[in-house]
């Protein structure tokens, strides 16, 4: 009897949490937005998502097996699937599929695996993939189909090479944005396939908070900063878009809830997370207002990704005993 007793150090129990539970938890949280994208953008959205996920998983498996020759595979933990879904969410639903595959190769192959795979990458793979595609294929990446209910995919009528009818593009062109609040909430506007329905994304946010997959710190600090900055600018110049328009347009919700909260590429301490969130919010407004691109969310997050090691070095959690009295 005694020779089969395990002797190990405490703790002897575990919460039962796992990497895959967290990854699949995020995927469940993404489901409402995914369903919305399928409804709004039809078969195009389904194809882009399927191809993106399949190629992300394939590239991770292949690189792990043939290039790194690593016997321990991480494809079952759901992280590659998650990157695939997020990459798809960040591109237009009518993007040629070969471009999607190229984006997946960059996201997984360059941004994730070259740094050492799961947990080691400096930048958010899906966002870096999107940025790569945006720079390489500006035309295809900014030709938005209008969402149409009932699987009716209508390519945007605007001239190729110009941004379509996204509220942010209109803002950039100095046009008045006259969007109905409810249309923006539900997602009746142009945009990448997963970013348009704020309601579905917020539903996912609540789910992740309840499941304790993420905490409120990063999303709330981003959204609050954007709202405050936009309110100030709108107050200074009433022609400037309202905070509501900023909050519900572009990739802000998707970025704040699902991209900036990526475990690997966000700071570890609560203090650091708030600094990171505020900086992303601020950069987003700066790029949206004065930058060359209409949308600043993904660049803001990527820029702040680069600062995460620095934030981690200088933002320590409050040690016990630092506050002696209440």
């Amino acid at each position, binding site marked *: 009897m005694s020779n089969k007793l395990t002797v190990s150090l405490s703790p002897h129990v575990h919460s039962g949490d796992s*990497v895959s539970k967290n990854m699949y938890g995020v995927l469940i949280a993404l489901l409402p937005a995914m369903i919305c994208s399928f409804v709004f953008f039809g078969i195009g959205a389904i194809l882009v998502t399927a191809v993106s996920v399949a190629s992300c998983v394939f590239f991770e498996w292949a690189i792990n097996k043939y290039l790194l020759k690593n016997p321990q595979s991480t494809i079952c933990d759901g992280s590659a699937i998650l990157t695939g879904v997020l990459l798809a969410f960040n591109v237009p639903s009518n993007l040629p599929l070969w471009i999607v595959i190229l984006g997946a190769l960059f996201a997984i192959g360059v941004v994730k695996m070259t740094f050492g795979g799961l947990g080691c990458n400096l930048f958010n793979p899906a966002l870096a993939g999107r940025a790569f595609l945006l720079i390489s294929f500006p035309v295809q990446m900014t030709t938005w189909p209008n969402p149409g209910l009932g699987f009716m995919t209508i390519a945007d009528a605007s001239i190729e090479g110009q941004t379509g009818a996204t509220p942010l593009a209109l803002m950039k062109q100095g046009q008045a944005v006259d969007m109905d609040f409810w249309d923006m909430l539900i997602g009746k506007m142009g945009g990448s396939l997963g970013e348009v329905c704020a309601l579905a994304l917020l539903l996912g946010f609540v789910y992740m908070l309840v499941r304790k997959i993420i905490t409120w710190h990063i999303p709330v600090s981003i959204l609050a900063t954007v709202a405050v900055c936009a309110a100030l600018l709108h107050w200074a110049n009433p022609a400037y878009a309202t905070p509501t328009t900023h909050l519900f347009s572009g990739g802000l919700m998707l970025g704040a809830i699902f991209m900036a909260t990526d475990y690997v590429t966000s700071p570890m301490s609560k203090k650091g997370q708030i600094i990171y969130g505020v900086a992303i919010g601020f950069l987003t407004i700066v790029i949206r207002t004065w930058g060359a691109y209409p949308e600043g969310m993904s660049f803001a997050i990527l820029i702040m990704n680069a600062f995460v090691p620095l934030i981690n070095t200088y933002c320590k959690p409050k040690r016990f005993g630092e506050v002696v009295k209440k």
Partner: protein
Amino acid sequence: MKTFRIGGVHPAENKLSAAEPIKVAELPKVAVFPLSQHIGAPAKAIVQKGDKVKVGTMIAEAGGFVSAPIFSSVSGTVLKVDTVIDASGYAKPAIYITVEGDEWEAGIDRSKDLVTLKDRRELTSDEIKEKIKNAGIVGMGGACFPTHVKLSPPPGSKPEWIIINAVECEPYLTADHRLMLEHADEILVGVTLLMKAMNVGKAYIGIENNKPDAIELMKSKTMKFIHEGDIEIVPLKVKYPQGGEKQLIDAVVGRQVPAPPALPVSVGAILQNVGTAFAVYEAVMKNKPLFERIVTVTGKSLAHPSNFLVRMGTPMSQLIDACGGMPEDTGKLIGGGPMMGKALINAEVPICKGSSGVLLMNEQEAKRAEAQPCIRCAKCVSACPMGLEPFLLSKLAEVHDWERLEKEDVVSCIECGSCQFTCPSHRPLLDYVRLGKSTVLGIIHARKAKA
């Protein structure tokens, strides 16, 4: 509801034996007393092979100020002074006594009558401390720090409160819970004795609210002792590691003890375990030295998880047999609770002063899942009750960066295991942090010795 401010986790409580009244365990055939049952210098044996001893006879004297004497829990003959493998896994010097009958030392009051301070007005603070010291009492929560040392705070410090730890935040364990339900009066008298010894007028008893019956019972009885001092029952939100000394002070009075070497008394608190309060009552009022304690014997596969009043020196195997025997699927045997207890190499380890529980885990529970890469989710940072960064400390220990580990306050780690418990990647965080902490402590000691 009150609780500590930083970190914490909530493991499944699994208090299987909470409704089991305390049973008196049978006497062992041979009782084994390791000489090192406390923090500090080991006790020195004062008996030899062939000596006759009674229940309550001192068999080893304190080996210094930070030490405690050891008393026989049985009557019989000293079989040998040899070694035994104790909970640490190492062979340690121990006294073996063959049990013959059950004859007690004459001075011990074995009656059940409650003796309160009202009956013993003449007791002085120093007398109480002296009796506690001479009875070999150590912290009964598991740390086993000699109680009289805790009651001798450094000159200049000013104790304001006694805080009684009745939290029992370890899953599975119910020894303190049962003790409160069955000996509430004795515990409260013990608390009044501690208050008198330290000359403070206020005591708090912190109890987690998963023991509502104990909170109610203790609350209903505190008024009885109002003339001896103000005892307040503080219900606490269930959160691990609330029973940690620093966490409990923060939870109860909202003050945080600074980093080591600061002691709890630096913020005005003297902490004692509820079992210690009971032992103090017995030592001072009943003249009974510390030789028995309440032990929870539990586990999901065990037929009858139970709470026992156990004579020290009894082998754990005997208690397991009394609960229906060692289950076939046992994969791990733990002395203490699942969060901070020690895995034992066999069931012959004797019950000592700090043995609060014996936990049997089945083969499946006993195995750790395979570690995966750190995904930097920061759950360990959120869980750490000391405000440390376990992911960083463990990584630094892996690469032997002792200098940086010291800067990152690794010595503040209380080894509660919340980080490893919560890690989704199943990383052995605390294993590495322990390595880092002990190495850094060694470096600090060496530096001090040099200076």
